[in-house]
């Protein structure tokens, strides 16, 4: 078994998967803390469907998928955040509308253009083991700035996540930092789609922070723990998928579920 693992992990495709996967998991986990605490978990899910729609339409029209998806998803992120503020359409309903709508557009677009089934599958379920070298560089070019921004604005992001009204009233520009989190999330979701697929990327955003919140009592603790959990689950998932020949994206999510259950039980025990 060890030999198999050593062999597999020495392959270039696996090393690319590890590098790309770890940086994106880390970013998704950190941003996820803020999103989950603001009750915006579903926005991550909605955005991944928007990303899916955008990517499929773009490739049907022979545009570069990622270059089209990033601006579209950023715009959708702002739209969903705004809808959350003024409640003519309730925020959760708005997310459902946008998400199912883009999914439908994506499916129709893919059926109109021939020979897209392979792509369709890869955007739905991810192709982490098939990352090209340029994919890896793209992940690093986007993830590292996202990480740096998150750390630079950490205190402000905490304050805005905890209490927007107080921030606005005391002169912290809450809307600016909300917008920042929205843009960073959109970037990571588009990237993460390549790895995990549209269906699974939102679990990368949501699971680690929810897991960390079971046991950590400080915001800093949650952020750090969430990052570690995310990377560890990614590694476990990918190892399991190699050993037992399972789909990688889904294995990573299942690793996250298992760790969540463990942390949930530990949290309950500690409280008692």
């Amino acid at each position, binding site marked *: 078994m060890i030999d198999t693992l050593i062999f597999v992990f020495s392959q270039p495709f696996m090393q690319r998967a590890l590098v790309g996967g770890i940086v994106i998991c880390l970013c998704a986990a950190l941003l996820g803390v803020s999103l989950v*605490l603001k009750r915006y978990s579903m926005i991550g899910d909605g955005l991944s469907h928007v990303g899916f729609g955008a990517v499929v339409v773009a490739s049907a029209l022979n545009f570069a998928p990622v270059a089209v998806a990033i601006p579209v998803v950023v715009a959708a992120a702002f739209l969903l955040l705004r809808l959350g503020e003024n409640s003519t359409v309730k925020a959760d309903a708005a997310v459902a509308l946008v998400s199912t709508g883009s999914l439908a557009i994506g499916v129709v677009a893919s059926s109109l253009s021939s020979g897209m089934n392979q792509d369709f599958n890869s955007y739905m379920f991810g192709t982490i083991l098939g990352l090209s070298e340029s994919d890896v560089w793209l992940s690093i070019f986007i993830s590292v700035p996202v990480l740096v921004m998150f750390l630079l604005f950490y205190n402000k992001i905490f304050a805005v996540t905890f209490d927007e009204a*107080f921030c606005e009233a005391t002169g912290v520009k809450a809307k600016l930092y909300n917008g920042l989190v929205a843009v960073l999330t959109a970037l990571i979701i588009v990237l993460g789609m390549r790895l995990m697929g549209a269906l699974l990327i939102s679990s990368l955003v949501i699971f680690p922070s929810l897991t960390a919140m079971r046991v950590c009592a400080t*915001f800093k603790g949650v952020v750090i723990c969430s990052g570690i959990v995310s990377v560890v689950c990614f590694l476990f998932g990918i190892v399991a998928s190699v050993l037992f020949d399972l789909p990688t994206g889904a294995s990573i999510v299942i690793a996250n579920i298992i760790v969540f259950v463990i942390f949930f039980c530990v949290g309950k025990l500690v409280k008692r």
Partner: protein
Amino acid sequence: MSLIKAENVCLGYDGENVVENLFFTVEKGDYLCVIGENGSGKSTLIKALTGLKKINSGTITFGDGLSKNQIGYLPQQTPSQKDFPASVYEVVLSGCLGRKNIFGVYSRRDRRQALDNMAILGVSDLKNKCYRTLSGGQQQRVLLARALCATKTLLLLDEPVTGLDPVATSEMYELLYHLNRDHKITVIMVSHDVNASLKYASHILHMKKDEVYFGDKQSYLSTEWARVFLGDGEKND
């Protein structure tokens, strides 16, 4: 010069006025209670004072060098805050951010101030406790300590005792009175609790749908407004 001077202020939503022709002044060291029925625009007024909401017309002038990032605000709690994983210290410290640059790095002075304010509000021993495990009264004290990090002059409070039990409620009022009297912090508070308001306030702003009364407590108590409102209050109790 007055700390706050509101002249001919109209407030409301989507251009429709809920409150019209509001005049009042707040001097340094005042304790102003804003009372009135639901929907009379009390919370809207607090939001206008914090700049969260634009006023439809009129002017609000801040004097004595009071600027926007010197206002301490205690908003109503949101549901997501009730189970927020953050330590008390993290929450209190975040009150200092208003006067920081865009990155918001805390200085030693900020940390000192956060600890001092926690001491004033008697939450020092909760420093490393998780915010979500605190009782409602403790949570409000923590938020008040945070508000004090943002101001040395003026506190704006929106229904600070909502959801608190009677003991925590009276402790909260005593604390506010103490801050007002001993730390010379001006207090503007929206409250449903008319009796407590009248006990501690120096001035009253009573808002109704189309009229407003503003004056010091003694003159308010002798008005028809007070008789009707307080009479109603007793009947409701």
